[in-house]
């Protein structure tokens, strides 16, 4: 059966209509119709099974309920923006009134005190995951190259990596929280503590796949190229820049893609557990509310989290295609 499917999708299976169509169009149709068919079947199955599941918060949300919540969440976002405008207007008036009374008063604008909307939470989560990921890349890639180049360094560090790699970053979370609250003390902090905690947790989990992949990529460098570098007597830094880096780009990117996927997954869980702002907190808050629309709002969040994860992966892939010489990477 799997063979049948793959034959069909790769076009080896001779379906009647294909012969009458130019191959480009049929390929395009296949790329369009098959995923649509998949989504359609899934939606039908989802909608059917959702109507069969009764929870104490009402029926399990089907596609209709989710669509309704998408509209609701967007409207709530718009309403909150309007409130924000009104808030600043009122504040200006109040400041003006106070200056009129007391000319020495230097007015201060305070940020909007309303609650983050769903859209804001998406923004927060994206910001956190990207900054955590970039921080991890800054640490992991040089480390990976160093390990890949030096066998002895590899032998020295490998046990540590092997031990920390399988640890769920959520286990780190309490430690990170305490350390951050102890060390990150400032009367007017640039970043919120919760942001730093989420960021470090994300970094901790992104680190290992990138280190591993980079070091493997570097270690399995084509010996011809190393030899060329030796013949030319390239200095170490130039060797890394001209030979090692370009050669291991595909491996580095594989590691980065893996990491980003894990980072996104872990971030949502961390936000949920630590009540840090973001999509995870949104899910938890809705769960706590226990209203009849809670489940459909959570389901909406689930789909949005999935979509964003998918988009993150695609962007990583595009970046990889654009930067890497190895164009054979499969789109998967």
């Amino acid at each position, binding site marked *: 059966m799997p063979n049948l499917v793959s034959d069909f999708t790769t076009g080896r299976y001779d379906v009647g209509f294909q012969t009458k169509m130019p191959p480009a169009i049929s390929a395009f149709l296949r790329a369009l119709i098959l995923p649509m068919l998949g989504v359609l079947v899934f939606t039908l199955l989802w909608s059917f099974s959702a109507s069969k599941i009764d929870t104490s918060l009402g029926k399990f949300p089907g596609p209709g309920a989710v669509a309704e919540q998408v509209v609701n969440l967007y409207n709530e976002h718009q309403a909150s923006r309007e409130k924000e405008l009104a808030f600043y207007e009122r504040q200006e008036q109040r400041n003006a009134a106070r200056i009129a009374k007391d000319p020495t008063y230097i007015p201060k604008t305070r940020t909007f005190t309303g*609650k983050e909307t769903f859209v804001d939470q998406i923004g927060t989560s994206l910001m956190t995951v990207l900054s955590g990921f970039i921080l991890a890349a800054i640490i992991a890639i040089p480390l990976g190259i160093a390990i890949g180049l030096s066998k002895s360094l590899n032998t020295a560090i490998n046990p540590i990596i092997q031990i920390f790699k399988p640890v769920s970053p959520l286990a780190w979370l309490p430690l990170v929280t305490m350390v951050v609250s102890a060390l990150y003390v400032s009367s007017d902090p640039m970043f919120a503590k919760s942001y730093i905690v989420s960021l470090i947790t994300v970094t901790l989990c992104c680190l290992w796949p990138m280190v591993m992949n980079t070091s493997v990529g570097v270690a399995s460098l084509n010996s011809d190229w190393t030899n060329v570098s030796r013949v030319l007597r390239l200095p170490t830094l130039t060797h890394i820049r001209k030979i090692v880096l370009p050669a291991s780009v595909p491996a580095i990117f594989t590691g980065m893609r893996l990491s980003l996927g894990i980072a996104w997954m872990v971030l949502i869980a961390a936000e949920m557990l630590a009540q840090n702002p973001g999509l995870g907190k949104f899910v938890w808050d809705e769960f706590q509310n226990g209203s009849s629309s809670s489940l459909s709002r959570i389901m909406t969040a689930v789909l949005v989290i999935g979509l964003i994860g998918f988009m993150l992966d695609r962007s990583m892939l595009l970046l990889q295609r654009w930067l890497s010489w190895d164009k054979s990477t499969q789109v998967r």
Partner: protein
Amino acid sequence: MQSTLTSLSGFSKKLIAGAAIVATAISFSSHAELGYPEKEELTFGFIKLTDMAPIAVAYENGYFEDEGLYVTIEAQANWKVLLDGVIDGRLDGAHMLAGQPIAATIGYGTQAEIITPFSMDLNGNAITVSNEIWAEMKPNIPKMADGRPVHPIKADALKPVVEKYIDSGKPFNMGMVFPVSTHNYELRYWLAAGGIHPGFYAPHKGDTSGKIDAQALLSVTPPPQMPATLEAGTIYGYCVGEPWNQQAVFKGIGVPVVTDYEIWKNNPEKVFGITKEFAEKYPNTTIRLTRALIRAAIWLDENNNANRKEAVKILAKSEYVGADYEVIANSMTGTFEYEKGDKREVPDFNVFFRYNATYPYYSDAIWYLTQMRRWGQIAEGKSDEWYLETAKKVYRPDIYMQAVESLIAEKIVPATLFDSLESVDGFRAPQTHFIDDIVFDGKAPNAYIDQFSIGLKAQQQL
């Protein structure tokens, strides 16, 4: 030298703060204007319960902003997180269980000086049991002519059920929200009044589980998770605030049997807690936030609860309580649904302003202290003076009265609303409306404690 200097400056700071409080107090008699708040950006914490309404209303109706306060309101995961937030300064103030500032001040649990200038509400809790327990209890309850059970339902009806569970070796577990919560004391009061022993605490022996000699085993569950825990069968019943009792009715997983209004008519419930340090450092801010909360409380009870529907709409927003409008409305608009379909009028189920609900009475604090003593959370006997002194440390009617006087002076609220506070000495008249008919006089706490048949005597030690 250095240290002397700093301690001196610390002392002088306190002097100045003290002088400032005195000065503001005096200034009211001369109707001088209240100064601008020293701290304008504040973060307040709350737990998702309908009795946080004064905070939400003060925000939504712009009362905080009228005072020049820019307040962010944040839901907290549980009471412990909330209390820690106030202690470590992450939160400037919070919706608290009445027992929390008291327990913190006497050092039960986390030691910290927390005060309350504003009592948030009266009543608002209920005890819910699972459907199975209800089915077993029901035959023991007398019926009215129309077949509905006679209220209030006493724990006497539950006693045979608990005994059956104990005889068959099954622990009878119930949930409450925090060891020093109103709910813990109310649930204990109700159980004990029906002859069911809820267990003692013995902190001096390191036992803070409160299960010594217990027939019903009480454990902590955060309010929003109560219905789910009941549904899972981990507990057979719980005592919690709204909307989590009505939620159980709507979901069909449990039946509220008694409201705290029936256990103790018009019992003080939540308070607004801030640290003593905050109040001393920011006296104007403290008075101003109290003013905003008083205005919100007035609005909530105005014209015979006329604004309650609007309040429910605010609370139903996902950033506040977030439960369904109907669930919140059930109790907030003066009715309470017991068994499905058995909806009865309880106009005073949630009281925010009437009956001087917002005034922080010393006697309220003393009642909580007597219950802490009764169940062993206060390990040894104390004198009547100790009860009063402790109450005075935590409950601050002085700040409340400053807020009221300035509101009246600025003609923001009519003075007639506060007529009954004219000659108040901080004590409610002896209170008679308890489910077991024992009278509570806040001026004689030790004599009060000695009246209970289940519970430690005033000077008894475990």
